[in-house]
């Protein structure tokens, strides 16, 4: 009896928080270019980990290592209790790459059917098609699809095998707003089923909307790893806008001001000490009006943390 239960592949979800994949002290160089230096990444069941970073920060290399496309120079790469370069281990993952297209002369449903054979317990083809929103175009040739529809086929291939761990690399590039929202809701649904999801994206709002944790890469190092709210807090600071009669030159000398700009009399100041700045500003400009104060967006936090002038308060950077 118990043996039969073990044979049964994952009908019950993996408990959230289970460690599914990790990089430990991993470095990887391409010739003289150090793509990753001593990077640690952990991915758990039932969470969305967003990997952010500028081009060349090491996102693709990290993904390539976790999905078995690359080998590390040093350090440990571990996936589902094995080596991702082992095709058998990869039965537990689904991957949607950033670039690449599928053979033009196969139909949508034929692509999904073929990929489903790679997995021991695939979703029914109709379910994969429905999750990716492809029911109505299942019989179309891949070459006849729009760019967004082609991306959805690639997504269907990534999820057709009920992977415990899903890698999606820039999944919503080229999707319209509605398609993107639908995609997000599917990712949330999969996370709810216990799937671990690694997401790389250029869209900060996507990470903000989806991620449980954000990993910030810069120059091959982990710059920060936190919740989206935590990342925002790390790049602590608020943005204050107000209509003022003062000159930008005068305000930018104040010690509380981190950055400043002005447009037709409306100034925008970024500060780590918003209260103190506000007091000073109100004292200096009796006519200050239309005051507006809000926290930095994840994007602004991201820019602050990765800008070359940022004082990096993080343990990772040696």
């Amino acid at each position, binding site marked *: 009896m118990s043996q039969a239960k073990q044979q049964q592949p994952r009908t019950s979800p993996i408990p959230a928080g289970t460690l599914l994949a990790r990089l430990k002290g991993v470095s990887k160089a391409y010739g003289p270019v150090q793509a990753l230096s001593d990077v640690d990444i952990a991915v758990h069941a039932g969470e969305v980990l967003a990997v952010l970073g500028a081009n060349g920060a090491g996102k693709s290399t990290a993904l390539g290592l976790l999905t078995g496309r690359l080998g590390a120079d*040093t350090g440990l790469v571990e996936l*589902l209790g094995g080596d991702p370069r082992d*095709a058998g281990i990869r*039965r537990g993952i689904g991957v949607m790459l950033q670039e*690449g297209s599928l053979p033009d002369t196969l139909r949508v449903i034929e692509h999904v*059917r073929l990929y489903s054979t790679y997995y021991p317990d695939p979703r029914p083809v109709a379910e994969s098609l429905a999750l990716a929103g492809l029911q109505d175009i299942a019989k179309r040739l891949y070459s006849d699809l729009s760019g967004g529809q082609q991306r959805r086929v690639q997504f269907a291939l990534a999820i057709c095998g009920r992977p415990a761990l899903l890698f999606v690399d820039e999944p919503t590039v080229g999707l319209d707003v509605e398609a993107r929202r639908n995609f997000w809701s599917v990712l949330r649904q999969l996370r709810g089923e216990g799937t671990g999801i690694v997401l790389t994206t250029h869209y900060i709002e996507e990470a903000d909307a989806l991620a449980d944790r954000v990993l910030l890469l810069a120059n091959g190092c982990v710059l920060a790893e936190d919740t989206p709210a935590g990342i925002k807090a790390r790049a602590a600071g608020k943005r204050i806008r107000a209509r003022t009669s003062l000159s930008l030159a005068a305000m930018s000398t104040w010690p509380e001001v981190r950055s400043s700009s002005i447009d037709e009399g409306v100034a925008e100041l970024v500060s780590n000490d918003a209260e103190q700045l506000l007091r000073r500003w109100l004292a200096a400009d009796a006519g200050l009006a239309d005051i507006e104060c809000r926290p930095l967006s994840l994007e602004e936090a991201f820019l602050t943390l990765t800008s070359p002038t940022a004082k990096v308060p993080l343990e990772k950077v040696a």
Partner: protein
Amino acid sequence: MSSPLQTMRLDIGRPSVLRIYLAEATSELVRVIRTPSFAAPTLAFPLVFYVMFAIVLPGQWGDLDKATYLLATYGVFGVIGPALFGFGVGLAMERQQGWLELKRVSPMPTGAYFFAKIAMSLVFALTTIVLLSTTAIAFGGVHITLVTWLKLVATLLLGTMPFCALGLWIGTLVKGQSAVAVVNLVYLPMSVLSGLWIPLMVFPPILQKIAVIWPAWHLSQMALGVIGQSHDVRYGMHAATLLAMTAMFLSLAAMRLRFK
């Protein structure tokens, strides 16, 4: 690094390997059948040339039975086309489009990819042989026993191996559509210089001598021997040469694939 594994090992079942291989081969076949620029020329060229040179054009070469002789050589021409194009252009396109990258991170066993391309080449090769043979028997007055025909089929199908390997190597060297040009630059001159279109004896002696460097010439000698149009064929030497060439092309391809 001997750090203990900490990630959770899943109880993942095994899918049927046979099913994967069959599905992969079926997809590859469907894919190329729907690609007119592949399917039409690889099937039509050998047949059209055979009809022109063996049946329509008059003339006699020594004491050879022209229609039978050319059935063997156009058979060779017909089977190496899909092998070269399937592997060469197929791999080059799939590398450029990123399809291969996606396959590499999928759980597909690597062998299934190559099996699919070999299976596709063999299906096209067999189709070409059947088309040529039917034409030769119906319109070329060729007489051939079933046993001889089966031997010819076996020789030609096994003989696709070095061309699959050569195609694979080309596919690792060039990307995308330029592979079509490169394959044609190899395929057509090699076919002519191996005597597949018209017998080598009409060529200058120097070209007849250097024919030994072409794998297509070695395969054609075996096919001509099997079909009774050439005597004293040293099968062992030709087969060994073809095997050695297969191994060489495979090694070259493997080196290219490893360096990337």
